[in-house]
């Protein structure tokens, strides 16, 4: 792992198209500004790990499909949208 020290407003470039800037530092938190092309996905690592875990669980449970689906009633999401 490469370790670099940067001050506020200083940047790191990864390749020619990605740059990460330190915007502020306070109370154990660092705020970063990231500029990257649209096709580069950026997300917090723990969210990526969570998605990966859920996907693996989906795969492991794929044969647990219930035999009787006749009673299915979809859980429409309108409620979820209105809450926000």
């Amino acid at each position, binding site marked *: 792992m490469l370790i670099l020290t940067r001050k506020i407003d200083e940047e790191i470039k990864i390749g020619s198209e990605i740059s990460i800037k330190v915007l502020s530092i306070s109370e154990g938190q660092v705020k970063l500004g990231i500029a990257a092309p649209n096709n580069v*996905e950026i*997300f917090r690592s723990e*969210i*990526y790990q*969570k*998605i*990966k*875990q*859920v*996907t*693996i*669980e*989906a*795969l492991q*449970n*794929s*044969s*647990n*499909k*219930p035999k*009787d*689906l006749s*009673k*299915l*009633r*979809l*859980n*429409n*999401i*309108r409620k*979820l*949208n209105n*809450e*926000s």
Partner: protein
Amino acid sequence: MKINTRQFGEIEFSPELMINFSTGIFGFENLKNYLLIKVDDDFFYWLNSVEEPEIAFPLVGVRVIDDKYPLENEHEAFGIVTMNPDILNISINLKAPVYINQTNKTGFQKILDSEKYPVNYNLFKEE
């Protein structure tokens, strides 16, 4: 081409039916080519890997439960489903939709920024 799937046994298909995921599915980035399979009376779609045919993700089109779900142009949004013998415990990942264009045979997965989409939303409810 022929592959031996877990869900459907051996299936034969023409290569132009393959859907290309250039960046893969999160956690399965090495798998790039899939078949999107739906059997007539089955409620679920199956996204079956061509490279590793025993891998198949059950999917549901998100629009069936949410008509306001974020669109990606020309792509249909699907959620990966976690099955459960109890229908009320079946969940769908709304946080990381799988977008598929069935015309030009491309697909990609995305993580939505919005906090309102959970990774395990209950797909069904009681009568």
